[in-house]
C-alpha cells in the first residue's frame, strides 16, 4: 500500500484517456480479470473520437471482393510516404476487419449493403471502398459502443480528472500518476502496475484546428517527460477540408466522405483544379479527366479515382497553393461542391450531420450551394515510439495507443485509418499491459516526491497576484505555431519558433490564476500549457531536422522528398526531470521491411 497525502487509488492497469483507444484497451485488460481504471479529462463519451465522421477502414471486401489486407497495407504505407512502422501498418491491415465486426457484438449498427453486410465507403488514398460507417457519425457509434461495453463490465471511470504527471518507482519503472479533479480542484494519486496512454492529439497548439480543448498533447508530453521517445512529431496532418466561415467555426471538420460520395473541389474560376496537382507517385492510379473520374464513383473498374481523393497531404497542399495564387473563395478557402452533383435526398441521407452543420452554423444549404473550405490542423502522425505488437514504450510499464502513439501512419495518415487504429492498437495495448502485469514486472514503490513536485508546480499560479492570463499565452502560442510551423514551413520560421518556444516556457512560470480551484477553466488551461509547449518544441525540432518535404511536413526551402530522409524517423527525448528541460533530437532508423511485404509495396499499381 502506498501512503499518499491525497486521495489515492490502486489499479493493475490504469488508462489515461477515454476515446476509442483507451476504451478498447480497458475492455481487453478487464477481460483478462485485471483491476482496470480509466481517467478522462472530460465526461465519458465526449472524447475527440466522437468527432470522427467518415468511417473506419478495414479490408473486409464487402463492396469490392478484390480488397484484402495486402492492398490496405500497401495503401497505408504509400499514404504514409513509407515513413511508417511497417509492422504497425501490417497488424492494422490484418486485424481491423475483426475489430470492426466485433463492435457489432457490443451493439454497434453500421450501415448495410443490400445483402446485409457492413457497407463500406470510398475515401482518399484507399484503393477500394473500405470504410465501415454510420452516415457521417461513425466516431459517435464507435465511442458509444465501447463506452456501453465498458460500463456493462463495471469498469471504474474517473471523469473530469486531469493527469499532471506520470510517477516512477525508485528503479525508473512506471508506478502511477498524479492528477486533480476538475470539479473540486483536489489532487488524487493513482498507483498502477502499468499505464496505457490513450490521450489523443495535439491540435490545440494551432489557431485553426478541428481539435477540441482537450487535444493539448498531454500524453505525448507526459511520455517525453517520463523518459520515452517521441517520433515523427514534425508530421502534422492538415485536413484539406475544414470550414473557413464564419470565423468562429473556422477549422471545424468537413468529412472526407463528402468527396468520397462525389463532392469535388473548385477554385474561384470554377475549375476542378486537383487535376493539376497529381504527384508522379499517384499518376498511374488517378483519373486524367473529369469524365473518367466521374465514371469511377459507380464502378471502380470503369475509370480511375478522381484526384480529389488523393491522400490528405496532397489535397491540402493543392488548396493552399490555389489560395496563394489568388484563386480562393471570399473567405480564403476554395469551394467543395456536392450540391450540383448529387440529389438533395442522397446528400441528406449520406451526410446528415454535414447538412446540419452548414445549415445551422453557416446558413449554407449544401444540397444547393458549395461549401467554403480550407486546410485545418487535424491529426498528429507523430507520437510515442512503441513496439508494434505490445504497444510498449521504452519506459517499463508505460504503453501507448491511438493518436498519442507514433509510427502507424508514417508521414501522413489516410482517412479512416484512425478509428481502426484505435481499436486494433487499443486492444494490443490492453494485451501488452496485461501481460506485463501478469508477468509480475510491476513497480516496487511510488515516488511520492515526484507527485508532490507536480502538485506544487500546479498550485504556483494561485500564489502570484500579478502575472499573465493563461488564455493570452494560449492565444499567442496558437498564432505563433500557425504562422511558423503550419502547413508550409521554412527554415527561418522554424528557427524563430524554436526560439520563441523558450520564451513561452518562461511565460508559463509567470501565470497568475483568478478564482478558486473548483472547476476553474483558467487554471485548467494553465496546467495544459506545459504539454502544449513541450509538444510544440518537438514538432519544431523535428521540422528543423527534416530538410525535405514528405507527407504532413512541407518545407518551402526543401520542396522535394529526399530518399535519404526516408530511412529514419527523428526521435526526441529529454534528460532533465522538469518539463522545460532540454530536448534532444536524434535519428532513429526505420524498421527493415521483410521481403514478402516489400514486394507488396513495389507493385506500382
Amino acid at each position: 500500500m502506498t501512503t499518499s497525502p491525497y486521495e489515492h487509488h490502486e489499479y493493475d492497469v490504469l488508462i489515461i484517456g477515454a476515446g476509442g483507444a483507451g476504451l478498447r484497451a480497458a475492455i481487453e485488460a478487464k477481460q483478462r480479470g485485471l483491476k482496470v481504471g480509466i481517467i478522462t479529462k472530460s465526461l465519458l463519451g465526449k472524447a475527440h473520437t466522437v468527432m470522427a465522421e467518415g468511417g473506419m477502414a478495414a479490408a473486409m471486401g464487402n463492396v469490392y471482393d478484390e480488397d484484402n489486407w495486402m492492398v490496405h497495407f500497401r495503401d497505408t504505407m504509400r499514404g504514409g510516404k513509407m515513413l511508417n512502422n511497417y509492422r504497425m501498418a501490417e497488424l492494422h491491415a490484418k486485424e481491423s476487419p475483426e475489430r470492426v465486426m466485433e463492435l457489432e457484438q457490443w451493439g454497434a449498427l453500421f450501415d448495410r449493403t443490400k445483402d446485409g453486410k457492413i457497407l463500406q465507403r470510398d475515401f482518399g488514398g484507399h484503393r477500394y471502398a473500405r470504410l465501415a460507417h454510420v452516415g457521417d457519425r461513425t466516431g459517435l457509434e464507435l465511442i458509444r459502443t465501447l463506452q456501453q461495453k465498458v460500463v456493462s463490465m463495471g469498469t471504474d471511470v474517473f471523469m473530469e480528472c486531469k493527469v499532471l504527471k506520470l510517477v516512477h518507482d525508485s528503479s525508473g519503472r512506471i508506478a502511477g500518476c498524479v492528477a486533480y479533479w476538475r470539479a473540486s480542484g483536489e489532487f488524487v494519486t493513482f498507483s498502477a502496475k502499468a499505464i496505457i496512454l490513450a490521450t489523443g492529439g495535439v491540435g490545440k497548439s494551432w489557431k485553426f484546428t478541428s481539435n477540441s480543448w482537450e487535444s493539448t498533447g498531454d500524453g505525448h508530453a507526459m511520455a517525453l517527460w517520463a523518459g520515452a521517445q517521441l517520433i515523427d512529431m514534425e508530421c502534422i496532418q492538415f485536413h484539406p477540408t475544414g470550414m473557413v466561415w464564419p470565423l468562429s467555426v473556422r477549422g471545424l471538420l468537413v468529412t472526407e466522405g463528402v468527396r468520397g460520395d462525389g463532392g469535388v473541389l473548385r477554385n474561384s474560376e470554377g475549375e476542378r483544379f486537383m487535376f493539376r496537382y497529381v504527384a508522379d507517385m499517384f499518376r498511374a492510379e488517378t483519373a486524367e479527366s473529369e469524365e473518367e473520374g466521374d465514371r469511377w464513383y459507380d464502378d471502380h473498374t470503369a475509370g480511375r479515382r478522381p484526384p480529389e481523393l488523393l491522400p490528405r497531404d496532397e489535397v491540402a497542399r493543392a488548396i493552399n497553393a490555389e489560395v496563394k495564387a489568388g484563386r480562393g473563395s471570399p473567405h480564403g478557402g476554395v469551394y467543395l461542391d456536392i450540391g450540383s452533383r448529387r440529389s438533395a435526398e442522397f446528400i441528406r441521407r449520406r451526410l446528415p450531420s454535414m447538412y446540419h452543420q452548414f445549415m445551422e452554423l453557416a446558413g449554407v444549404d449544401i444540397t444547393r450551394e458549395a461549401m467554403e473550405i480550407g486546410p485545418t490542423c487535424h491529426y498528429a502522425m507523430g507520437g510515442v515510439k512503441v513496439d508494434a505488437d505490445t504497444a510498449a514504450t521504452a519506459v517499463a510499464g508505460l504503453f501507448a495507443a491511438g493518436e498519442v502513439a507514433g509510427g502507424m501512419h508514417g508521414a501522413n495518415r489516410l482517412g479512416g485509418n484512425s478509428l481502426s487504429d484505435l481499436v486494433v492498437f487499443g486492444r494490443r495495448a490492453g494485451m501488452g499491459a496485461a501481460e506485463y502485469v501478469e508477468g509480475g514486472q510491476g513497480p516496487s514503490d511510488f515516488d511520492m516526491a515526484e507527485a508532490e513536485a507536480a502538485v506544487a508546480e500546479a498550485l504556483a499560479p494561485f500564489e502570484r497576484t500579478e502575472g499573465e492570463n493563461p488564455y493570452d499565452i494560449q492565444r499567442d502560442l496558437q498564432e505563433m505555431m500557425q504562422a511558423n510551423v503550419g502547413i508550409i514551413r521554412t527554415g527561418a520560421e522554424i528557427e524563430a519558433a524554436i526560439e520563441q518556444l523558450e520564451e513561452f516556457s518562461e511565460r508559463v512560470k509567470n501565470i497568475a490564476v483568478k478564482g478558486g480551484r473548483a472547476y476553474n477553466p483558467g487554471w485548467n488551461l494553465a496546467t495544459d500549457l506545459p504539454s502544449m509547449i513541450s509538444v510544440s518544441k518537438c514538432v519544431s525540432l523535428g521540422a528543423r531536422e527534416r530538410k525535405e518535404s514528405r507527407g504532413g511536413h512541407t518545407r518551402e526551402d526543401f520542396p522535394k522528398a529526399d530518399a535519404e530522409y526516408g530511412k529514419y524517423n527523428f526521435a526526441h527525448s529529454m534528460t532533465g526531470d522538469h518539463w522545460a528541460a532540454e530536448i534532444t533530437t536524434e535519428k532513429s532508423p526505420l524498421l527493415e521491411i521483410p521481403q514478402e511485404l516489400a514486394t507488396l509495396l513495389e507493385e506500382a499499381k
Partner: protein
Amino acid sequence: MAEVTMRVWRGDASGGDFENYTLTRNEGEVVLDVIHRIQATEAPDLACRWNCKAGKCGSCSAEINGKPSLMCMTRLDELPEGPITVTPMKTFPIIRDLVTDVSFNFEMAARVPALLPPPMPAEGYRMYQEDVKRSQEFRKCIECFLCQDVCHVIRDHEENKQHYAGPRFFIRYAELEMHPLDTNDRRDLVREDMGLGYCNITKCCTEVCPEHIKITDNAIIALKERVVDATYDPVAWLGRKIRRRTKKSAAEAAVQPAP
C-alpha cells in the same frame, strides 16, 4: 459596433447570481463563442463544459433564455434582441457556474442490461438496412441530456429520480428493444423500475433534441405499446406461451454477462 450583453449565472451549490458581460458582436457567432471570449478576458474562471463545438459531443448543454439548448449550436442572430440569459441545466445539481453534476445519467446507464446477441458467425452478422434504421435513429443520441433537463417528471420532482430513467434512457431501451440482434427482454424492467408510466407524452424532450430524434413518437410511445402488450394483452400473453420465447425476461436479462 454592435454589442451583445450576456447575463450569465455564476455561483455554486451554496448559491449565486447573474453577472452581466457586454462584448462586441461578431458575425456568425454562437453563444459558446461569446462565453469563450468572456473566459479569455474578463472571467477566466467562468466554468462551462464544451468539447467539439460542432453539435456532436453534447457537452455544452445549458439554458439559453430559459430554453434547454447546446451553446455551440445557438447562433446569436437567431435570438431576439436584448440581453441573452445563460443558466445551467436546472434538473441537475450545480457544480459551478454553467456546469452541473450529471452523474444521475451515468448511474442510469450502468443499470441498462447489456445487448445480448447470438454468437457472431465467422463472417459477421447479417442485418438489413430496414431492420437497423430504427435503432440507428436512437443511436444518434449525443447524450447532451437536454431531454432529461426539460422533462418535468424529474425537473420539478427530485424524488422521481429514484425510479425514473428519463427520455435519454427510454430511447436507449427502445434502441435495444428494436435492435435486430438483441435477445434480452427489458420490458418489465422499464415498466417497474425505470418509470416509463410517469411519462405523459408532452413531447418537451422531442422539442429540445439537437439531433432531432423523435423521442416521444418513435421511442417512448413505441416502448409504452410494447410494455403494455407484454403485461395486459391476453392474446400476446397466450402467443408468448405457445410460441417459443425469443427474448429473455428482465430478471434473466439483468444477470446475463455481455459477450
